[in-house]
């Protein structure tokens, strides 16, 4: 069974569109994250949720809105997509904030 899953794996869309990426973890973890990895492989945290509560919001444009309907899910909605949003987005989870993180396979977003 996949521990952390993301859908879709690939997303190609045009500028100005709105899209969502879904993430689910079946590890029973309390903390979930969204990361953005750019073309140079630099990985930067965007958001972190603990027990459905937002605990990290890392200077991300407000076009990005995370939503955690329950502890096992953390979705990412992006409004008015821009070319610079093209990247690979990773979801991750951990039992506690200080523990090792388990990453999903990533969603490659391409904005044209």
């Amino acid at each position, binding site marked *: 069974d996949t521990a952390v899953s993301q859908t879709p794996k690939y997303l190609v869309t045009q500028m100005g569109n709105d899209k969502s990426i879904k993430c689910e973890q079946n590890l029973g973890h309390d903390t979930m994250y969204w990361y953005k990895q750019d073309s140079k492989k*630099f990985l930067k945290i965007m958001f972190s949720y603990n027990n459905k509560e937002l605990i990290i919001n890392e200077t991300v444009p407000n076009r990005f809105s995370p939503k955690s309907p329950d502890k096992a899910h953390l979705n990412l909605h992006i409004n008015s997509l821009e070319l610079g949003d093209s990247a690979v987005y990773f979801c991750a989870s951990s039992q506690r*904030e200080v523990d090792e993180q388990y990453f999903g396979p*990533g969603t490659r977003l391409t904005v044209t």
Partner: protein
Amino acid sequence: SQQGEEDPQALSIQEGENATMNCSYKTSINNLQWYRQNSGRGLVHLILIRSNEREKHSGRLRVTLDTSKKSSSLLITASRAADTASYFCATAGTSGTYKYIFGTGTRLKVLA
């Protein structure tokens, strides 16, 4: 910022040789973690070392931590072609929210 920086950026070795990667960071940490990323995949956790630990082993992996120099090293012994991947260190601070900062990564290529 306590961004980790890995050194070297890229490393190419022959199968059977040892590979050493270094990570430097800027501020006091709670712990330091090493992750591996195969091409096109998510990150996989390798080892977590706490700030009060100096060395840790896991199979062919050996991690050291020198908090006085704010640096860590990852040694992979008897490397295999399957070890070809990018390796990242991630650090979390000692106060407030444990926001992990990932380094820039070392791209390791093991030649068969």
